[in-house]
């Protein structure tokens, strides 16, 4: 499934501007689902109908948006200032490039630092698009960009911008392809918007669907690199991480057990995840309306929110297996 991962991660869709990636996903899944719609927040909601006799609804969510930038000012010399869409880390971006929606490429640079020992703030950064003045600058205030890095293979790993969370989108698409039996429950495959700015798409998506259970597919941090930011018992290559807790939720126990049972029965390697900083769409789904059972299959990912987010391909394949296994054997409390 490397093709679909590449297509997803190299697509364009900063938070709030998911049009292009949404169209690409829609093309992939249209023949595989029974109904498809886009809601007011731009969520792509695809229904795979179940046999119908238990009347339950499962919402599976991965977010289409990626962190990015919006032009906030173009100065007299044509240099571009920007604000962040989502959690942009300045030191990851300096020296890299960004691609605007109209195809313009810019180099990300920074002003001199008052204190070179300190990491720069975002307002020290600017983008050089080769313009000489405001008049010949090809981008304007309000135009958006994503960071630019094509997917590469690092041995058994894949590195790219926007693994967070296009790898989740790819897993959902592959799961739709791999599902052979009609599930007992109605399954809503939801490709959400604006996760990186506060789980906004999942909030309205879950309200509209009103599911019995929600499962997010998203990346999580790891503790397997030299001096990691946080110690964490998750490594890439050790299988999908079944979330126990993060800063946005405590996973509904029976949802976690459902994941563990399927993984165990099908001999899919897995690890358990306690994430100290971060949250996923599952947190928004869980708090929707009067409350919804929810959990998350996490893909361990190094260097999250950098242009080279790195995952293990085997973990991705096993995540698809786990998701398909769960949807074919739905459990409701």
């Amino acid at each position, binding site marked *: 499934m490397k093709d679909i991962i590449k297509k997803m991660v190299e697509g364009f869709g900063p*938070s*709030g501007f998911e049009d292009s990636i949404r169209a690409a996903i829609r093309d992939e899944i249209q023949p595989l689902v029974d109904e498809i719609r886009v809601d007011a927040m731009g969520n792509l909601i695809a229904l795979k109908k179940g046999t119908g006799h238990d009347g339950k609804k499962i919402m599976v969510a991965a977010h289409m948006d990626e962190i990015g930038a919006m*032009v906030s000012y173009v*100065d007299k010399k044509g240099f571009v200032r920007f*604000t962040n869409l989502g959690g942009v880390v300045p030191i990851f971006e300096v020296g890299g490039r960004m691609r605007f929606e109209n195809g313009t490429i810019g180099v990300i640079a920074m002003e001199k630092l008052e204190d070179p020992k300190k990491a720069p703030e975002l307002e020290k950064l600017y983008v050089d698009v080769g313009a000489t003045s405001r008049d010949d600058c090809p981008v304007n205030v*309000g135009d958006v960009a994503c960071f630019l890095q094509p997917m590469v293979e690092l041995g058994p790993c894949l590195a790219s911008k926007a693994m967070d969370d296009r790898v989740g989108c790819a897993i959902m698409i592959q799961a739709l392809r791999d599902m052979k039996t009609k599930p007992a429950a109605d399954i809503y495959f939801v490709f959400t918007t604006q996760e990186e*700015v506060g789980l906004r798409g999942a909030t309205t998506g879950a309200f509209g669907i009103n599911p019995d259970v929600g499962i997010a597919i998203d990346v999580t941090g790891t503790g397997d690199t030299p001096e990691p930011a946080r110690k964490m018992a998750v490594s890439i290559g050790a299988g999908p991480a079944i979330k126990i807790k993060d800063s946005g939720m405590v996973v509904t126990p029976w949802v976690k057990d459902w994941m563990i049972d399927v993984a165990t029965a099908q001999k899919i390697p897995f690890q358990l995840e306690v994430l100290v900083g971060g949250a996923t769409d599952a947190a928004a789904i869980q708090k929707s309306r009067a409350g919804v059972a929810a959990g998350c299959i996490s893909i361990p990912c190094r260097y999250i929110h950098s242009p080279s987010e790195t995952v293990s391909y085997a973990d991705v394949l096993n995540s698809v297996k786990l998701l398909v296994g769960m949807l074919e054997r739905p459990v409701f409390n």
Partner: protein
Amino acid sequence: MMLEKLSNAFGPSGCEGDVRRIVISDIKSRVDELTVDHLGNVICRMKATGRGKKPLRIMAAAHLDEVGMIITHADDDGFLHFDKIGGIDDRILPAKGVVIGAGKVPGVIIAKPVHLTSAEERGKVISHDDLVIDIGAANKDAAVKKCAPGDYATFDTRFRRFGRGLVAGKAFDDRVGCAVLIELIKRGPYPFEFCPVFTTMEEVGLRGAKVAAFKVRPDIALVLESTICEDSPKEKDRGSVTAIGKGPALSLADRGLIVNRKLVRFAARRAAALGVPCQFKQPGIGGTDGGAIHKEGEGAPTLPVSVPARYIHSPMAVISLRDFHHTIDLAEDVMRHVTLADIQP
């Protein structure tokens, strides 16, 4: 004028009663429904003119509350200690006049005279925790007879006109939006279902707007605001958030809302068609009730349209009346012309 009355009215977040009464008495005969909900929001409805298919429901929101203070306790010497309500820069507090509570008791936030301060002291910001309000009481008993813990306070500022077409006053954020919304009500009814909402507690976290949007469930929402304007000349070529006199400011994205791009571009095109100047608010700064409204229920495309206001969240803000009138005209025009087909993702 209505803006003057609203600016002078007393209404920190959670204590919007005076402002609410002014608004209700002015609009109640003009709307078909008016309710005050549990959070103090004034939620109105004006039926669509004409018949036919289900009309579009447009919500327009402005917040009643302003930043202010709340009295926490009186000390033995009769001075009142306070906490801030909403975002106020501690640097602007010393030596400002305030009014406190239902009795509008006048007071002054203390300040040490320059004669007695050292250079070091003058270089430091005094935290509001170390400031107190002097109401002229000799001791604790005398103080609590006039002002009790829990009483709210606002800056004691009277609305005024100055310069060419400028006005100054307190609480322009967001009494300016309230005045715009009242005028929009007076220009109705409309061919769509119009739901004007005057919200509470915006300055402490968009609290009123969230529940109001849940109740209204609009198809589209406008947020009428006055927004940050820092257009003084700058050393660095970094632009300004908005500029005074350049027309209503349309938000593209702020800390709580990424505006539906089709809606904001539609509004900019309507401004051009109408011959009204407009500007984009510099993205990434501030937040409005739109942050709550757009993601309530199944979500609704939401656009903040703001009058640029210098020195907001202080005792004295400044707007241009031309910007104010242009904001009313543009908001009306956008509402009259927008359709769901224009803005669907």
